[in-house]
């Protein structure tokens, strides 16, 4: 009974999950598959950005910098022979630690100051990545990063990650993990306190929330996921360069997040898939891509600050209201 009840309430999400699991049978084109894999990866990092920007209200523009730190961490560790499965958590934790250390001074600033100071940090990361040649290989970057090591699972045997299908399931698993963590976080008391800080920091402080601690925690978790996405990216792509940490990447995540719907869980994923797919259809406009992005960003922030998800929920409310009225009318007739 419980299972049926669950299915009736959450059928849409179950359907989506089944579709996601069946996707390798639906897509045969390698190139399209690559886009889907990137969509999953960027969903993870955009979900991280959503936590600090959307739920906590602090516009961190160093997100690609932390993505880059995670990527370089995994790249260097994997090249020196450490297993991917150890390198990835280590690298994500290192990213989170650096996030903590950077958050301590920078989160004391507010509003645009925080945006600017984090942007400066992001630029420093890519300059250092380009110039610390002994460690990072300079502007040519790191090449020949090994794929994730094969996993041996009891009963199922050994899984290697040579094929795109295996790589897809890998990123999908990490995306679901990220979504799970975000869901638990956002709907907990802690998530509510993040939103309280976003809405009014002084008021949040007055009701007993420590705004600084909340902001630090949110920043650290956000950067952990940026580092995680970066680490997987490095291993799957096989090569990285300072442009992996460039602020242009942060800006495109910003577009995904705002178009998809800020401070929603589905919004970042919707944005991270919808925009690259849209861009594929507008292949002839590839040069004008950023002009379109920019114009969309301005239009969305002025006219639809809640993004696509906001549009959907408005639509849903209208439909509900419509049906509600009809039902109301029926019962009035019956009565």
């Amino acid at each position, binding site marked *: 009974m419980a299972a049926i009840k669950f299915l009736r309430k959450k059928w849409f999400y179950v359907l989506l999950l089944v579709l996601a699991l069946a996707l390798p049978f639906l897509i045969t084109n390698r190139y399209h598959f690559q886009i889907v894999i990137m969509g999953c990866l960027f969903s993870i990092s955009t979900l991280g950005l959503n936590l600090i920007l959307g739920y906590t209200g602090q516009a961190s523009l160093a997100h690609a910098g932390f993505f880059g730190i995670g990527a370089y961490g995994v790249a260097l560790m994997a090249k020196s022979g450490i297993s991917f499965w150890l390198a990835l958590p280590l690298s994500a934790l290192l990213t989170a630690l650096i996030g903590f250390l950077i958050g301590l001074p920078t989160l004391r600033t507010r509003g*645009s100051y925080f945006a600017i100071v984090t942007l400066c940090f992001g630029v420093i990361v890519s*300059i250092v990545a380009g110039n610390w040649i002994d460690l990072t290989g300079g502007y040519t970057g790191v090449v020949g990063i090994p794929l994730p090591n094969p996993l041996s699972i009891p009963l199922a045997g050994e899984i290697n990650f040579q094929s795109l299908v295996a790589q897809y399931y890998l990123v999908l698993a990490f995306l679901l993990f990220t979504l799970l963590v975000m869901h638990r976080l956002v709907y907990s008391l802690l998530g509510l306190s993040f939103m309280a800080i976003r809405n009014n920091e002084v008021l949040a402080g007055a009701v007993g929330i420590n705004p600084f601690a909340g902001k630090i925690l949110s920043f650290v978790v956000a950067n952990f996921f940026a580092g995680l996405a970066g680490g997987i990216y490095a291993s799957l792509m096989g090569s990285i360069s300072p442009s992996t940490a460039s602020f242009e990447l942060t800006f495109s995540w910003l577009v995904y997040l705002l178009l998809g719907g800020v401070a929603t869980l589905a919004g970042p994923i919707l944005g991270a898939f919808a925009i690259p797919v849209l861009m594929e259809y507008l292949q002839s406009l590839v040069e004008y*891509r950023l002009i379109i992005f920019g114009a969309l*960003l301005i239009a969305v*922030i002025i006219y639809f600050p809640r993004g696509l998800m906001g549009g959907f929920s408005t639509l849903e409310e209208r439909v509900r209201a419509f049906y509600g009225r009809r039902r109301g009318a029926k019962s009035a007739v019956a009565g």
Partner: protein
Amino acid sequence: MLPATPADGKCMHLFLQQVFNGVMLGSTYAIVALGLTLVFGILNVPNFAHGHLYMLGAYVSFFLMTLYGFGFWTALIASMVILALVGILIERVVYRPLRDKPHINSFISAVGALMILETSVIVFWGPQGRRIPNPYPGTVELLGITMTYQRLLVIMAAIVLIALLQIFIKKTTPGTTIEAVAQNREGAMLVGVNVNWVSSLTFAISTATAAAAACLVAPIFMISPTMGALLGMKAFVIVILGGLGSIPGAILGGYILGLLEAIGGGYLSAAYKDVYAFGALILILSIRPTGLFGREVS
């Protein structure tokens, strides 16, 4: 930056050379930061596209000179006028609808604006760097340092521009209305100042001065579509450190940053010269979250 080789007994000359370059660099920073402090400090608009407007100014003057045969000075004036119009347009379309919204919304809108500006220049004029022909070739030797006329011109022009702007703000009626809005927006509205008009005027001045700075240094450095991003960030660093809305702070901060970069780049490491400014910002904000002379942002 000029190649300077350290030789025996030339240390002092090398140092003076770096100071000269630093003052020249600082002159452009001072002008650009001055324009930004007007809109960020006074109008409270985080115009993150300021550096990109500077870049656009350089391109406009480049094409006026090469395609339409404008002279250096006429191109500079024309570029200032065109950029003033662009500034008014951007204020109206990108920032005014968000005036009463949280600060961060304007910032995101600004990111949209800078994406459009940078990509438009790449699409229409190509990503490669270009060089504006130098109107005043030739050098002068003084105290053992080589000064090109163009560099001297930048320093002089910056002083003239800053002085003119000061006179405008302090002595003319439109200038004093800007100051009135800066001191108290509601009060200014009560005595009949049209805030929308002041916003347009401030943006026009801000972008026109950025264009002037860009045209002045364009013959020295290459111009490229990406040159605006770093400069815009540096201008923000100067404005925050010098105090939001403080004109003397922006000027002084600009010169200090120019000297810091030239001397740091000459003696420490040229590859990391852009890191100094950003590192200094993080360091100083970690001690004083509102900037050196800062007041709280809303």
